[in-house]
């Protein structure tokens, strides 16, 4: 089990059917493209939203991620796993938005949401993405985990979020994070977990919560 935790975030499927779909997209096949969008809109939204912490902007950026996939489809090389390429685009666009907000702070209209109840109304209800009914977390604990996650440095957050999606290997995370070493990835993930643990432990023990 330790191997799973420290070496892999999930299984890596080397015979990736997404590569075949993407090769069709490369040839201009719009139906293959639609299949990819349907399949990956959720993980991309999860990543982008938790990168920038703004649901409205996250949706625009997530859509732009897929538009970029179409526009740059000719550059896709089957040597890279499709998700590596996709998450790299998603992270880059997310980082662009973070930089833009740093330069123009007034543009950040939405404050970080403290819990799930305060989501902007604009989000269209989607039957495919309800809060999991079997989630063991209470709304309050979930909000604390979200908050602790949002307070992590971007690389630690992105690495943990990619782990969360499953099927993303450390090698892929290294690529998405800009071609860093495997040791660096392990260290980043371990640091992220350690910080989360330190932050959440007092809350889980005594309900005590420290704002960052």
């Amino acid at each position, binding site marked *: 089990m330790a191997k799973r935790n420290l070496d892999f975030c999930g299984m890596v499927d080397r015979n990736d059917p997404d590569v075949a779909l993407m090769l069709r997209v490369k040839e201009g096949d719009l139906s293959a493209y639609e299949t990819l969008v349907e399949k990956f809109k959720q993980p991309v*939204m999860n990543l982008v939203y938790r990168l920038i912490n703004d649901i409205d902007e996250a949706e625009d950026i997530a859509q732009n991620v897929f538009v970029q996939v179409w526009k740059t489809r000719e550059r896709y090389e089957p040597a890279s796993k499709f998700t590596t390429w996709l998450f790299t685009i998603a992270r880059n666009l997310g980082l662009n938005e973070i930089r833009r907000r740093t330069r123009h702070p007034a543009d950040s209209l939405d404050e970080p949401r403290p819990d799930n109840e305060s989501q902007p109304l604009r989000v269209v209800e989607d039957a495919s*993405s309800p809060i999991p009914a079997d989630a063991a977390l209470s709304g309050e604990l979930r909000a604390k985990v979200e908050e602790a996650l949002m307070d992590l440095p971007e690389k630690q957050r992105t690495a943990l979020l990619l782990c969360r999606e499953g099927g993303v290997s450390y090698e892929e995370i290294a690529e998405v994070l800009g071609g860093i070493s495997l040791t660096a990835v392990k260290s980043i993930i371990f640091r992220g977990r350690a910080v989360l643990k330190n932050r*959440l432990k007092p809350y889980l023990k005594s309900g005590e919560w420290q704002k960052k």
Partner: protein
Amino acid sequence: MNQSEFDNLLQTATERDLTDGELARLERWLAANPGDQAEWEALDHLLTTLPDTPVATNFTARVLDEVRRAETAHPALGQAWWQRLLAPQFRPVQIAAAATLAMMVIGGVGYQSHLNQSRAEMAAAVASIAEFTPVFLVDFEAIEAVAQADAIDEELWAALK
């Protein structure tokens, strides 16, 4: 490694990146200590049970609309630049380019024809002059030899005088 060292290493991890050796020690420790391992997995579980971010029902449709719009504005972005120039929206450019090319071809042909005509006229003129000049050209080589002779040896010239 003991529990205290493990805890210290966890604390260290919150402050800086761990080295290869430290990560290896942590892996060994977790593999040998199910209690710490379970705590670690509980943390992973917390993350995996976070709810998915809501996605609009028309997300895919909006993406496809955007792609189609982009394709209409800039059709066949996947094609080479010269193929894109053949698109209908570049019709005025295509017409201007074709007209320029036609003018260049016509100009080139005309200039070549002019050169050919000049050469023919020059050849005819030379031929007509040649009919009258054989007498004048008899001593041509001797005159050329004198013109290209070495400079006069001044001392020898003085002695001969």
